[in-house]
């Protein structure tokens, strides 16, 4: 009985630690809804840590092509993400007219991009830390940097 209790405690603690590690960076969330008859609806969320981990584990040659294409933008991306982390709660851009509403804001350390229009609704939630990890990893993989 005691053995079972210890095993359960160990398993529970491991799961708690694993869960805390996986979700420490937050969650990436993407929602896209096209408002037409055959419009697509994409909804997914993924722990941000998995993106960082995947970039770390991915073979270098697989990232090189993407890194080369993104190279001109990587320094800007890295600086923006580093700076965004300093402003965890801030409204950055808001554009509103009769039909469309676009909003870019930082909420609790996450970059929130909302684009609501008649035809399409897009919501993206992305931790700023993850953007920095992606920029850092791609810079490492980019040849000639």
């Amino acid at each position, binding site marked *: 009985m005691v053995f079972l209790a210890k095993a359960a405690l160990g398993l529970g603690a491991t799961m708690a630690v694993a869960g805390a590690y996986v979700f420490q960076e937050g969650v990436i969330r993407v929602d896209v809804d096209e408002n037409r008859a055959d419009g697509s609806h994409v909804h997914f969320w993924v722990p941000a840590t998995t993106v960082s981990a995947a970039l770390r584990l991915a073979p270098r040659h697989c990232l090189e092509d993407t890194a080369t294409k993104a190279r001109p933008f990587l320094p800007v991306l890295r600086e923006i993400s580093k700076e965004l982390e300093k402003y965890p709660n801030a409204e950055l851009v808001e554009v509103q007219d*009769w039909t469309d509403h676009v909003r870019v804001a930082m909420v609790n350390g996450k970059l929130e991009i909302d684009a609501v229009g008649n035809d399409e609704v897009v919501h993206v939630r992305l931790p700023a830390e993850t953007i920095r990890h992606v920029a850092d990893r791609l810079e490492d993989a980019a040849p000639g940097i």
Partner: protein
Amino acid sequence: MNQSPRGLLGFLPTTALVACSLLPPLATAQTSSNSEEWIHVRVESREDKTKTVRVNVPVEMAVKVLPAIKNKNLCDGKVHIDSGHLDDVDLHTMLDALRIAKDGEYVTVQSKEDDVRVAKSAGFLYIHVTEKKPSDKAAKATGDKDSAAKSTTAKESKVEVKVPMKVVDALLSAGKDELNVVAALRALSANGDMELVSVKDDDNTVRVWIDSKSVAN
């Protein structure tokens, strides 16, 4: 009964570990940025109040990000001006003369079409332009005589710019044919809260100002 304290002791480090792993994001979320200066841009349509553009950018972020942008005319936080536009005017000499000069009104133009005023006062450069234009929109739309009569009424479009001289100096610190935007932003940030640009015309109102609030009121 003997197992309970040992189980608790075993559980405590795990709990502490989980707590520690969660602490950094919470600590980051509590970081305040109230002491920073922010540049705000607001564009509002006069006809349709629902049309608005609001941009709020921390000055420090702009100062860090701008040098990372390598564009045709923007490099290392400096904007390159096509020398063709500056051939006739030595901008540096002109502004240097303005900096040394005493406070006063330097340019005053009053005409049927425009009023222009350039002045220097208490370390600030003021540029006020008022464009007077007949509102022929209504006349064109309806074509009746009343509207045609109204079209003779002049409608004003006002542009007001207020810039600290220190910012002008910083802007020109890069050398000929270049404007040092990063240095200007630093100087602007050091100057504190102020309204920089105000444009009011028939269609839109535009405001650019700097303050320590992260949200535009």
